């Protein structure tokens, strides 16, 4: 326990103050915190009311959520009693807002009535142009609507809506995988700016062309929802809550870093809010404050950006973590657009007139590294950084770690689950390219078994005893790839039926139509358990849906409810957007949930909370969508975040149930499957671009090493910011 505290302390960076570009001034505008009735909780969106000048904030709170309004002039505040994740004002003061994740509502000011306006679920962005044209961004976490992940043009007279955006075209033109839409801004020229949940910011120009702007790839909880706002001068503000940075992007695509700092970072969530009143920019996130940034001279930010400045130089030396040798050919890039490669000494220099920079250091085979720098004429402006090849930041004493398979050589990209068959071959679910790959540790060979068919939205891969392979068809069902199939399979989804997937030979590979299955496991009697989460909409055989339910498919093919996570005498079920599912030697099913709760279901279907995700009454929480598995020796291991969300860890629940013993800290992602060898001495981990192997070098099991460590190991601390753990994009909502 003391070692754990020591390691975590060493990993924590001391938070520097917020750094703003010289000439700008940052002040605290509001800091009343939830659960105060007018307190800030977890903001999703905010905007100034053109009629009253008040700031309206759509937010989640302890009590569920509200729309908070703040009058800075009078100091008054109040709330509208609706939980919303997006809002926007029309020039006449009519407010349009998402009502929970169900519909688009409106506040008719003259009649002071709140009305259902359009049946658009999962509203994640609302903007009205100066000419009164209403646009709404519909995401896809939560209830499914007609046009998920698109921007809708909405008729303000009758609420009719139609799509005004094509994510398919945007993907094709930008080359970026685009999933869930999470923000929207519209310029007066008719450009639409849409953010996606993993950091992509895409603009649709009036001519219909799509372009990526200032792509942000870091995440909290798997998401980087990046609120945006376009002011009256068509300057786009982009607030990266994950990294604590505020950018301004003008119509020419020029990116200017206005401010950065740890105090601007979200604590647990990557959503936040940004808006402008014409001269000042306001930002807010789950740190429960609103900051106001303005030019000291009182001029518009767009003018501030264009102020002429002299060029300055900043230089870097890049070394490899561990052996401290210089790394050549590292691409050093500034968000403002400058770039250079390191030489044989690991040295590179950039010149720019901008005072603030976010620098990325990238090279295949190493974790991406970011550095915020402040450059002025008075300092040396030189930094030394270290790149991590992909190993955990910290390992339990006595254990060894190696990268078994990587992206460059073996095609591992966005690995979210891993399993092994009886011949020792390893299967990886790679959600980024949407492939299932198989790797042989003996021969070193790797092959792609399947691609397409919704695998880009599958986070699970499982095998039966005959080596048939199971994965999810996006959120629409479960597929089964026969072991005897002629691999590789190129899968397509029937355009008329999202649950139908076929291979190139026309074989129907749909195994089940149960929706939103992100966990699956076979029991010893051959029953197949599927974990269907919050997206478990009605499907054949389940007219009321399979929300938050374990469904069993018997060997006969019959499907029925296995468990709804009910505990006798409890007011509500334990399942909360249930996710990963594994079993222990007693055939009890263990289920990870959105809130991090680990729930165990016995063979009678009764549920029991094993560990609370928020850590209540325990030493620490687990983070959302914790992964879990048994080591075959009766020890339960969990993978997720540390309670403060700062690190991705794999830990063992002590047999006493009172402690969490870390195996590895500082993985590339907090989610993802892991599997033990039968003897408990080896641990396979899917970790984004790598499959890692952690093993015991002796006859003791990994659990033995945790329970009786032989020696301590110091890890190296960093002053820079590595790519924080990558989190499942369904962290926030599914």
């Amino acid at each position, binding site marked *: 326990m003391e070692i754990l505290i020591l390691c975590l302390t060493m990993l924590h960076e001391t938070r520097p103050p917020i750094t703003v570009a010289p000439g700008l001034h940052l002040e605290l505008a509001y800091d009343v915190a939830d659960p105060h009735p007018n307190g800030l909780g977890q903001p999703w969106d905010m905007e100034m009311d053109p009629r009253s000048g008040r700031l309206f904030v759509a937010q989640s709170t302890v009590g569920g959520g509200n729309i908070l309004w703040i009058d800075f002039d009078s100091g008054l505040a109040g709330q509208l009693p*609706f939980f919303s994740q997006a809002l926007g004002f029309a020039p006449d003061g009519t407010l349009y807002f998402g*009502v*929970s*994740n*169900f*519909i688009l*509502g*409106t506040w*008719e000011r003259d*009649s002071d*009535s*709140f*009305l*259902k*306006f*359009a*049946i658009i*679920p999962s509203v994640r962005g609302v903007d009205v142009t100066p000419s009164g044209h209403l646009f709404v961004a519909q995401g896809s976490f*939560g*209830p*499914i*609507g*007609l046009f998920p992940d698109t921007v809708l043009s909405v*008729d303000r*007279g*009758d*609420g*009719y809506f*139609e799509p005004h955006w094509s994510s398919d075209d945007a993907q094709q033109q930008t080359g970026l995988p685009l999933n869930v839409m999470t923000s929207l801004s519209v310029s007066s020229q008719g450009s639409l700016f849409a953010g996606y949940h993993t950091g992509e910011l895409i603009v649709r120009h009036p001519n219909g062309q799509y372009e990526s702007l200032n792509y942000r790839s870091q995440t909290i909880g798997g998401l980087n929802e990046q609120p945006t706002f376009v002011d009256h001068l068509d300057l786009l503000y982009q607030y990266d809550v994950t990294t604590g940075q505020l950018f301004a992007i003008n119509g020419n695509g020029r990116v200017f870093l206005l401010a950065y700092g740890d105090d601007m970072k979200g604590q647990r969530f990557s959503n936040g809010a940004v808006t402008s009143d014409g001269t000042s920019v306001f930002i807010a996130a789950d740190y429960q404050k609103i900051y106001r940034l303005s030019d000291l001279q009182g001029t518009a930010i767009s003018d501030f950006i264009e102020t002429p400045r002299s060029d300055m130089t900043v230089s870097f030396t890049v070394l490899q973590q561990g052996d401290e040798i210089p790394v050549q050919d590292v691409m050093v890039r500034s968000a403002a657009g400058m770039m250079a490669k390191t030489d044989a000494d690991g040295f590179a220099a950039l010149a720019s007139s901008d005072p603030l920079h976010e620098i990325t250091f990238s090279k295949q085979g190493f974790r991406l590294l970011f550095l915020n720098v402040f450059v002025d004429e008075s300092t040396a402006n030189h930094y030394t950084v270290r790149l991590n090849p992909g190993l955990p930041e910290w390992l339990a004493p006595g254990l060894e770690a190696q990268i078994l398979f990587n992206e460059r050589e073996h095609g591992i990209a966005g690995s979210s689950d891993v399993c092994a068959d009886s011949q020792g071959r390893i299967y990886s679910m790679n959600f980024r390219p949407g492939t299932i790959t198989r790797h042989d540790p003996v021969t070193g060979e790797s092959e792609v078994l399947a691609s397409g068919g919704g695998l880009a939205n599958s986070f699970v891969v499982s095998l039966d005893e005959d080596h048939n392979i199971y994965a999810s068809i996006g959120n629409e069902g479960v597929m089964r790839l026969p072991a005897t199939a002629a691999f590789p399979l190129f899968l397509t989804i029937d355009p*008329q*039926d999202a649950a139908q997937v076929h291979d190139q030979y026309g074989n129907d590979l749909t195994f089940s139509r149960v929706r939103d299955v992100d966990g699956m496991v076979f029991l010893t009697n051959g029953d197949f358990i599927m974990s269907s989460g*919050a997206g478990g*909409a*009605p*499907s*054949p055989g389940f*007219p*009321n*849906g399979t*929300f*938050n339910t374990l469904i069993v498919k018997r060997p006969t093919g019959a499907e029925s409810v296995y468990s709804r996570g009910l505990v006798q005498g409890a007011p*509500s079920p334990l399942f909360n957007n249930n996710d990963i599912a594994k079993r222990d030697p007693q055939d009890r099913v263990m289920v990870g949930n959105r809130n991090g709760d680990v729930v165990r279901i016995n063979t009678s279907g009764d549920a029991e909370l094993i560990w609370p995700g928020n850590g209540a009454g325990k030493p620490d929480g687990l983070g959302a969508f914790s992964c879990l598995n048994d080591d075959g020796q009766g020890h339960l291991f969990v993978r997720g975040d540390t309670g403060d969300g700062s690190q991705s860890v794999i830990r063992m629940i002590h047999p006493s149930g009172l402690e969490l013993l870390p195996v590895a800290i500082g993985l590339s992602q907090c989610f993802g499957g892991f599997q033990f060898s039968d003897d408990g001495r080896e641990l396979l981990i899917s970790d984004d671009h790598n499959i890692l192997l952690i093993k015991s070098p002796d006859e003791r099991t990994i659990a033995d090493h945790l329970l009786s460590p032989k020696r301590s190991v110091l890890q190296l601390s960093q002053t820079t910011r590595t790519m924080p753990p990558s989190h499942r994009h369904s962290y926030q909502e599914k």
Partner: protein
Amino acid sequence: MKYPKLWLVLFASAGLLAQNEVDPAMTDLSLEDLLNLEVVSATRGAVPLRESPIPLSLITANDIEMSGARDIPELLQRLVGVDVMKVGTSQTEVSIRGKNINFNRRLLVLIDGRSEYIDLIGVTLWHLIPISVSDIERIEVVRGPASSVYGANAFAGVVNIITKQPETSGGQVHISSGNENQPSGHVRAHLKHNQFSWLLQAGFDEAENTNTAVYFPGFNRIPTTVNFEDDASSKSVSKVVLSGIYDWSDDRSLRTEYGTAFGDMELIPQPGLPRADWDVSNQFFQSEYVHDAHHLGLWRFQLHFRDFSYKTQLVPTTVDVLSAEEQGNSFFPSLDDEHLFDGHSKMQSLSLVWQNSTPSGKTTAVAGIEYRHIDNKGGLVPQRSKNVASAFANLTYRTRSWLHLTGGIRFDHDSITSNDIGYALSANMLPECEHDLRVTARRAFRTPSLFELYTDIELNVPRQNHRVRFRGNNQLNAEEIETADITYTMHVGNRFQLEFEIYFERYKDLIGNPESGRLTEIEFDPNTNQFLTTTSFENLSDAESRGLQLDLRYQPKPNQSIFLNAHWADPDELNDVPGETFFTPQITLNAGWRVTYGDLSTQLTFRYVDKTDPHEFPRGDLSANGPNFTRDHQQRYSVFASYFRCRVPAVKGLDLFLFVDNIFDDHYVAYYEFDSVLNAAGEAFGREINGGIIWKF
């Protein structure tokens, strides 16, 4: 015009015919004879048409013979002020002075004095009426409210269908079919033997859908109106009526009837819901005893039983909606589980009516009492029943030969909505010259149907994550209407009649079923990811309407007649009552020309139906009191029709006929509605050619 040559030929032929000899059997009544025809619907006692104290239109037997109409609504649509709206092949709505609507609940339809109004849902299913057009002697249409005589639901007016009584033995066979595959057949056989008369009427009526999906740009923006199963058969109804009449003497008779109509129809119960198959039947038993006690008056005792039964699945299941191919269907309302709405609504009524006049004829009184019991079992409404006890009286006092004053009142005690009163006051000036003037004031009421009071149905709209609850409201008040009419009639000899009428109507407590849209009334359930809206019936609005009409008849010769009528309406706030989408065309025109020469008779008609106010609701309005729909794309349409009937000399009593409706095939959609999500559509109707035989024996 698409067929100018055809039009010219028709006119030329008709013109030639006009010059030649006349067959008396096919001639119209003279206008004077028409005005002297006795009608019963104004007071429930017999009174000459000219002396009717309230506005009343008449369709005579000859009108019916020469109309070519295939059903009763087609007969009615030529009358001034009557709106006939074809919602679909098997669903037609009729109203008077505007106020037409899908499932019109504000018109009372009678056959020989017995009600065809179905209290369960408050409508008349015109295509389920057990008689056919050829059974009708005449139709009396009361324009405007008539609760002082008939009680509840005689709100917009009354259509009283008087059937033919057998006077000899014989019969008739009527068979037809046409290009839209709408075969129908009807046989009527009557036997008179001494004091007994027997009558058997039987028939069938079938039709397919025509152009089921109505689609035009900007309307079906999210197509939700496509039915899930292509069902070629829109209507398939069979009918049988058996009557026995015993004439004790000249002053006493007993008539007993049993009839049934049964089959399949497609009804659109609510905007946005699909056209569902309804397996329906309408059975009745009626017995009427009439006794003319001379100076003690005329007594009429009637006993009536009716059983309306239905089975429908109403909407598809959620599984079917999710499996539907077309994406727009994902906004279809559905039921979670397959459910058959299977119910009966039974009505029993007793009435006793007495009519008498003073020996001088100066005063005529009609009075009566009635009792009705309605019992609903299962289906759309749980088991419910209600009773209505009524008493009415009206008195006509002829102060002068030219001045008739009439007053009538009716009191209804309804076991659910309590008491209500209808009245009528009239002053009818009939000088011995060519000009008549009548002034009328009336009040009527409509009681809410059992569906409006008690229903509780929950539908699922899966891709909206939306559940919709329809819930009745047992606190509803009756709707009210008050009307004032001024009618001026000029008749010149036997040849020319012009009637001009102006009316004002005021409505109170109109019942609608809006979903308010208020967020505070929506139930959001994060556990199921669904939200629930409740649509309940409420007494929502008051409104007004006014209109004027012109009705002209001209008979240049005994074998020719021309009619022309026009109606103009100005409904104020009527068409935007939340939750009730009324259609009140601003202008309707009817014109017709009929001529008979020898064995050939011809009728040419023209009908024009305007839009509602052209500036009405070009876009939807989702404000709290907004109508929530748009009238953009509403059509105005005109229909030319022709009817030819020719006797076959070789076979006694045999006629051939040809009816061409919508000669120029100008497709039109009479009914549709639109709201922000759910669209409803009727059918588009084009040219229909129907031909067949009529054989009287």
